[in-house]
């Protein structure tokens, strides 16, 4: 797996998302509650673009009339037929045994650390002003 710098953390505001072309694939990165998640921008059901999905909460009901929300913003609701997926691992809440969105590991590293890595051209100075979002594909 290669690591790809896709954005600065500030490029994707909290609650926002953005699509990046990485190795020929459209990958959508979500920023939720301080964490970043990367998924294939394509619903496994009929292919809807997940960048347009709603970020929703897990809604459960122990009994009629009682509702509980949890994991606010961490579940994706597909823009077409509304199947729900867990951003952490792409797991479907709709048909969990069979359906999954492909997900990718994401890390946030500071520019300073990256400077030491293989991504910096030797001859150009790099200004460190932010953290970078790195997706492994």
């Amino acid at each position: 797996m290669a690591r790809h710098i896709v954005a600065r953390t500030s490029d994707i505001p909290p609650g926002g998302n953005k699509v990046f072309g990485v190795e020929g694939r459209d990958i959508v990165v979500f920023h939720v509650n301080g964490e970043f998640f990367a998924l294939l921008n394509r619903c496994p059901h009929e292919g809807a673009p997940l960048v347009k999905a709603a970020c929703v909460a897990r809604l459960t009901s122990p009994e009629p009339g009682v509702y509980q929300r949890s994991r606010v913003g961490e579940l994706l609701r597909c823009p077409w037929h509304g199947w729900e997926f867990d951003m952490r691992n792409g797991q479907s809440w709709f048909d969990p045994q069979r359906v999954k969105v492909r997900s990718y590991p994401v890390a946030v590293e500071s520019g300073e650390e990256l400077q030491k890595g293989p991504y910096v051209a030797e001859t150009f100075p790099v200004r460190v002003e932010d953290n970078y979002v790195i997706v492994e594909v």
Partner: protein
Amino acid sequence: MSDVIDRPILAEEEAARSRLRIIDCDVHPSIHAHADIEQFLPKRWQQHLRTYGSHLRTPYIGTTPYPRSSPLIARRDAWPPTGGPPGSDLDFMRKQHLDPLDIEYGILQVLDLFIFSQQNLEFGAAIQRAINDWQLAFWSDRDPRLKASILAGQDDTEFAIAEIERCAKIGRYVQINVCPRANEPLGRRRYWPIYARAQELGLPLGIHVGGYGGHAPTGGGWPSYYVEEHQSNAHTMAAQLTSLVLEGVPERFPNLKIVFIEGGFGWIPSATWRMERHFEAFRDEVPHLKRRPSEYVKEHFWFTTQPIDEPDEGRHLRSLIEWVGADRLLFSSDYPHWDFDDPRYAFKTPLTEAERRKIFNGNARAVYKF
């Protein structure tokens, strides 16, 4: 990864795809702004629309059935960047739907203003007429791929006939639409003059789900939830198929083609089997039927595919297609609504090239005479 989208595409499907353009029998355009439709409405009804709005045959006084599942029942990605509701911007529809999916023809199905469910029949007639004109001016004239339907709500049969005559003279409409939820079941004789005219003109009768006849949408009463109501679309279609067949519409109008739109097709075998068995026991109650119910179903009716049934096992969908008949099915996407079907992934079972040709193009070409 998932076994849903990763269904292998057969080599022959791949080959067929490159040659096959799609006829989409259910595309929903919507009105961008009231002013667009008002220009086709007489002053008296413009005033009425502004003052009274819709007065529908629903028990939910002062409400409309929206939102259902998602705002304006639309795909979340279908809101045009130029503003206005999904389906209201032709350029965006071209860019998002007609061009990328290579749609050869898209048949327009207008639901705006609850055309078929207005309590005030005269107002209902005025807006149907206005929308019939608007479909040409705003859609068909601007993109020849988009074909209009004559809206002719059957509860005002006299109006319906007059409107069919008027539009047929213009000659650019491909079907006559009536509503599955009207005052009475569709087989009743009061509606037959419409069927007679449709047969003479050679225009198929289109029946798109929806509408409010003032009755509960299920035989069991009013549903509590949208998910429950959505389910009732299939019951309604089954009831109308039964009514049309058993009251003798295809027997009386053998050249009339009837298309059920947006009702899916999973319910057809059971509805037909039941009619068939009961017909054996009760045939002397309906002596006007000269043939078996299944023969009428298989020869006079077509069904659009969306919302497609998705059984856990693909082979069950395959049996369903085989039973209903690949020659009875017309592809429809329902763009831009939330339960849109993408022609590339909607069928969770492989289709042969012959089946694909029929379902995605050939059947519609024959039914609508493209």
